């Protein structure tokens, strides 16, 4: 079936089977994401948010159902996708420069042009002067910015953000939210964020999917109005409507 959606999940179910038995991680998940959209999967831990990202990234196969990117079925990892993990996971034995080239190396695209592009991204993050430093010499916020550059260096269209701010202190986190949203908007990337932080979800996204746990299901979809989603995340929190949306999401999450 053809559609103009960039990403579509169709009745995706994932069950993990081990010696101890089986765990229903997610069940009958259906949703679509348009090009350039910023979507958040919000829910308590254990509702299969990260599982959905791993399925979309082609790292694990769904037990049932199918996932499509640009009407092509996901069967393995794809160059369309960039994945940001909860921590920066920079390689301690490589310099910053070598770290941001990691994806290019693996995909066999370490051309002069791509290297220049990656260094330009590093400059946009204000970290060019650190290119020959080692990760241990950088602060947590700087390291996560390097991780963002590493993800963007392979030029993916879709970014999967798996709680990328959860390991940072509050101030750094707020600054990075603005930086990420600004960067992704300018580069017209599509993003799926996974988080359990309500205000982060409202401040950053265009739409929020609220998941309920055991097994993970989509309970509601909340559209964020333009007044909140147009400004950058920090400014969004100042908008009067923000509080009512916070209450709405809070109620949905606690509804049982």
């Amino acid at each position, binding site marked *: 079936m053809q559609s103009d959606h960039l990403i579509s999940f169709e009745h995706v179910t994932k069950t993990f089977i081990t010696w101890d038995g089986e765990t229903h991680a997610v069940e009958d998940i259906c949703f679509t994401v348009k090009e350039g959209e910023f979507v958040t999967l919000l829910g308590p831990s254990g509702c299969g948010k990260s599982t959905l990202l791993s399925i979309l*990234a082609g*790292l694990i196969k769904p037990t049932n159902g199918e996932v499509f990117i640009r009407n092509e079925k996901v069967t*393995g*990892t*794809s*160059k369309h*996708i*960039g*994945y940001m*993990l*909860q*921590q920066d*996971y920079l*390689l*301690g*034995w490589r310099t910053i420069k070598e770290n941001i080239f*990691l*994806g290019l*190396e*693996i*995909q066999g695209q370490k051309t002069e042009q791509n290297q220049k592009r990656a260094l330009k991204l590093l400059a946009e993050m204000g970290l060019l002067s650190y290119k020959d430093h*080692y990760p*241990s010499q950088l602060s947590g916020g700087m390291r996560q910015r390097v991780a963002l550059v590493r993800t963007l260096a*392979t030029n993916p269209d879709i970014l999967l953000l798996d709680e990328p701010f959860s390991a940072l202190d509050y101030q750094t986190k707020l600054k990075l939210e603005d930086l990420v949203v600004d960067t992704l908007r300018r580069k017209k990337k599509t993003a799926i964020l996974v988080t359990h932080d309500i205000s982060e979800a409202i401040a950053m996204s265009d739409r929020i999917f609220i998941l309920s746990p055991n097994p993970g299901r989509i309970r509601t979809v909340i559209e964020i109005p333009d007044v909140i989603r147009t400004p950058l995340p920090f400014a969004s929190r100042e908008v009067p409507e923000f509080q009512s949306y916070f209450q709405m999401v809070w109620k949905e999450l606690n509804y049982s």
Partner: protein
Amino acid sequence: MKLQPLEEWLTRGKFSPEHGKYLKKERLYSFLVGVSQLVILIFFIGLWEVASTYKWIDPLLFSSPSRIWETFITMLWAGDLHQHIIATVWETVVGFLLGTILGTAIAIVIWWSKFLSRVLDPYLVVLNGMPKVALGPLFIVAFGGGFTATIAMAIAISIVITTIVVYGSFKEVDPNFIKLVQTFGAKKKQIFSKIVLPASFPTIISTLKVNVGLAWVGVIVGEFLVSKLGLGYLIIYGFQVFNFTLVFVSLFIIAICATIMYHLVQYVEKLLLKNRK
């Protein structure tokens, strides 16, 4: 007033009078440690010499520092000592390198195949528990006396533990690093070369240090059993002709060579790991 230059030397590189005091204290402390070490050495050698001269200990069994030194010099001039040293050091280096390389290679193979790792697990445990020295007689028959059998002994003693330790560190690599490169589409070979191997590098280097010691044990035991050359052979020969001075000469040379080798490995470790946190 006369002590002024000494005071200046002790506080060299100071930023402030307090920093100078601190530097002086630390330097005097290091000096005291060095002097104490030297005193213990001199005292020990002196006591040994005196005890031997006045027959407090049996000089035939325990020899004496002066006789050990004399024998060492005589053998050095006679020109047959260096070939024993060279033989043993050479065997140790070869055994040490082969044991480490082969042990790591087996660890890589086991990491590659989950099935193989399950299959081989009990065999590794048994092999590790078995005293490898007991294989000596087998090596004599299989490889004949000399070089090959001695090296086989050195390898046998270090290879299993290397495999177990290195494989253990392969397994302990944070799975999130592997996930990271998988999201870029990395194949198993790339996961290994970009993540698993470099992440385990410090462990591999630290097994080098352990293996230097093990290789010495393997080579000396190997020479005990089979060789006509080398420091281990000198020890056994000295024992057989009841020349314990010769045994002590060999022991001291082994101690010195083993220390030098250990420090070389430590230096290499520093060079290779200097950029890691």
